[in-house]
């Protein structure tokens, strides 16, 4: 069972992850990550794996919508919904 995760906790994990690949993650909460070409295709794959492992959630096929992954805010929202947090 996924542990309840707050939006702040989720944001922190996502930004930590993005910081591995991007120089400056401050203020990018709404920046398009995938359609904006910020993340290489392999990095997107690794990000999805990282979310699944960090939050013990399963990202299913129906979750794969750009509206769930194309920005930090979108990802935070997805994680919150998946873990039953807010």
């Amino acid at each position, binding site marked *: 069972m996924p542990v309840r995760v707050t939006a702040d906790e989720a944001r922190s994990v996502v930004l930590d992850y993005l910081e*591995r*690949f991007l120089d400056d993650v401050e203020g990018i909460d709404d920046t398009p990550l*995938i*359609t904006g*070409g910020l993340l290489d*295709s392999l990095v*997107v*794959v690794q990000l999805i794996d990282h979310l699944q492992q960090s939050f013990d959630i399963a990202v299913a096929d129906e979750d*794969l919508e*750009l509206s769930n992954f194309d920005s930090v805010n979108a990802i935070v929202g997805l994680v919150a919904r998946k873990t039953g947090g807010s």
Partner: protein
Amino acid sequence: MTATDRLRDLLQDKYADRIAEWERAGAFPDDVASGLADTGVLGAMVPAEHGGTAWSHRAYGEANRLVAQHSCGLQSLLTVHGMVTSALNRSGSVPMRAELAELAAAGTVAAFALTEAAAGSDVRALRAAAEPAPDGWRLTGTKRWVSFGQIAGLFLVFANTPDGDAAFAVRRDDPGVRITPEAVTAGFRASRLAILDLDGCEVGPERLVGRPGFGLTQVGGRALVLGRMCVAFGSVGLAETALNAALARLDQPGPTGRRLRDHQLLRGLVADAVVAARGARLLAESAADALDARAEWAVSETLAAKLAASRAATVAAGVSAQIHGAEGLVEDGPVHRRVCDARVMEVIEGNTQLVQDLLADQVLARWRAESRPGDRRSR
């Protein structure tokens, strides 16, 4: 008897003698995969519930290494077939997954159709398009250098939709599909490369693999990780065969009784080739184990293995050719064939320079992750 043993015996008994002839002709026969199907290797990336054999990455890698010892062109069938079957299993619709059994056991080959004339390493330049049609999708575009495209029954095609890049399962007999042989290449001569033309090819909604916007990442990106692992093991197989040929030549007494092995400069060449091949094998095995364990840096390990192994193949094939002298220049001979095949290993599933670029991203990311431990709130 393990599946790997069965594969080794099959290669020795049924394929070994005929491979040189196929390579000379520049074409594997249409049913080349049917023999392989009996060993379970074609279902290796498919779970039992869909008629597969569910091998580990390590076991599949080993199969790639064994096949490449006989023929790198034939090994590339395992690369593309493995990529497509694993993608369909992970992201395919329920009806498409139900058809995996045919790919896993019947010897029907699956081909990977990503590359275009103007979109090789830069997959974002993709031109093929898929438009929503009344009953599914309508695909238009031209895919190039599709390995085994001449004989494949099913293609995993990447195209842009109005909602982003996506992957589709296209059958050979779908309307609007035209398959033309590519010119025979110097390496992987017999791999039946094809041009795949899609001229308003209409397919049902169940043929969409994954979701629009995630074709190049979730479907293509993951498939390429597996593909690079396969190329790494195939390259190791090639490097080992080249080395064995070089050692056999070095150890032969010449007419005056003197052996090449006594020439110090040649000993240096062989020592370097052994280190490259052995190192590559360890990296390939480590990458396969990381994929099996779903380890955090498995992608990085796979890139490292592909880079090292394809270069080891180039080194070992080159050393072997140099040691064989004029004999190594024979056009149809195995020594020269390995030189040509090694070139291909440095191009497919990400060329050497692209892989270096991706690997540099990964090692920098890993360094950042490890040098900034803890979460950002504590900083």
